[in-house]
């Protein structure tokens, strides 16, 4: 488990967007992991730990109230893109991103993504997890993982391009 402390912290930090809150989440997650590790029979301890970290993050203050969670209707079959999954009208993440464009920093752009887009992006790009692992960690169908990842990247690329243009 200890080799994955960095992964645990990275995910917690990106989910909570705050160093102190991230540390609390990792503390909590490690205690849970310690309690259950003896009974862990899986083959992918990193994904297992990240799932615990994610649960701890979601149950901690701030995320469990649904304040910033933008629900997205699950898409249908894998391999298809639902139109409204690509163009979300709820809470308009693009508007949030445009606010952040002044910084022109990828870090700010990603941090400004709604959590359900940020989460698969961080797991894929920074943790190099497979779609299957991301689906397990986030308890989301693979098709939804794929379309969220696509939306996250599209928003990132488009906002970056726009902020370069201005």
């Amino acid at each position: 488990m200890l080799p994955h402390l960095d992964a645990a912290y990275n995910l917690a930090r990106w989910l909570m967007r705050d160093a102190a809150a991230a540390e609390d989440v990792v503390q909590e997650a490690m205690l849970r992991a310690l309690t259950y590790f003896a009974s862990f029979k899986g083959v992918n301890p990193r994904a297992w730990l990240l799932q615990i970290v994610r649960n701890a993050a979601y149950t901690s203050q701030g995320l469990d109230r649904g304040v910033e969670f933008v629900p997205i209707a699950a898409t249908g079959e894998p391999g298809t893109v639902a139109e409204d999954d690509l163009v979300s009208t709820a809470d308009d993440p693009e508007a949030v991103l445009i606010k952040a464009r002044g910084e022109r920093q990828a870090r700010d752009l990603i941090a400004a993504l709604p959590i359900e887009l940020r989460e698969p992006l961080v797991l894929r790009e920074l943790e190099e997890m497979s779609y299957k692992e991301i689906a397990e960690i986030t308890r989301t169908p693979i098709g939804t993982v794929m379309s969220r990842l696509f939306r996250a990247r599209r928003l990132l690329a488009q906002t970056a391009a726009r902020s370069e243009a201005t």
Partner: protein
Amino acid sequence: MTAAPECDHVLLVQAELDGELDAAQAAALLVHRAQCPICEAAAAELARARALIGQDLYHAMPEDVRGRIMAQITAAQAPRRAADSRRAASPALGWWRRWLSEWRLPAAGFGLGAACAALLAVLVVVPRPPDVAEEIVSGHIRALQPGHLEDVPSTDQHTVKPWFDGRIDFAPPVKDLAAQRFPLRGGRLDYIAGRPVAALVYQRDKHVIDLFVWPASESAARPAETTERQGYNAVHWTQDGMNLWAVSDLEAGQLREFAEDWRRSP
């Protein structure tokens, strides 16, 4: 944001970028991309997004945080160790060692491998496979190496069958023959005769039976034929437009019985 025209394949373009396509899917996508401006644009956009994200964005755990977390783990560990004090001192407990020592899985390299495989699939025009039975037996032996047998370990046909969705371009028939003492163990993907095929794993006592399934070129049913290669028996038949090859170290009579049970099972 205006709703750009979309194409069903953009998620596959992304999957290729992420190294999630197998060789056959990647080759098919190449053909599609050559004539789809939407997918080309999506590929450029995805590449731009990826280029924005560097490993400098990774939040490694700061040393002071690590120190506090380790102290917490040690403290939480103390009661356990006390309870287990008859064993050797401190972190020598088996599970504790496992906790410390399991290592990071190699994640990179897969993308490169997929790309090479895609290239091979395009460049190599498979002539006519010399001997399918030989390939079947090799596939079976390869799968018997530890950890290679099942990609989806499950005794439930309703778990195994959907697992193949999206991984393969046909829906393999999955039957459970537990009642005939050939319980289903799981399934995986394999490559036979230059194409991806479904491999269903069954068991009779200690013997593993692989059943390879892929669509047949002619729809007429063919009766079972038994062959033998390198001490393994193989039974081949076609049924409902599918090529079926059962292979096992099971004795030929019992393997034929498996094939017969499978054929009759609804």
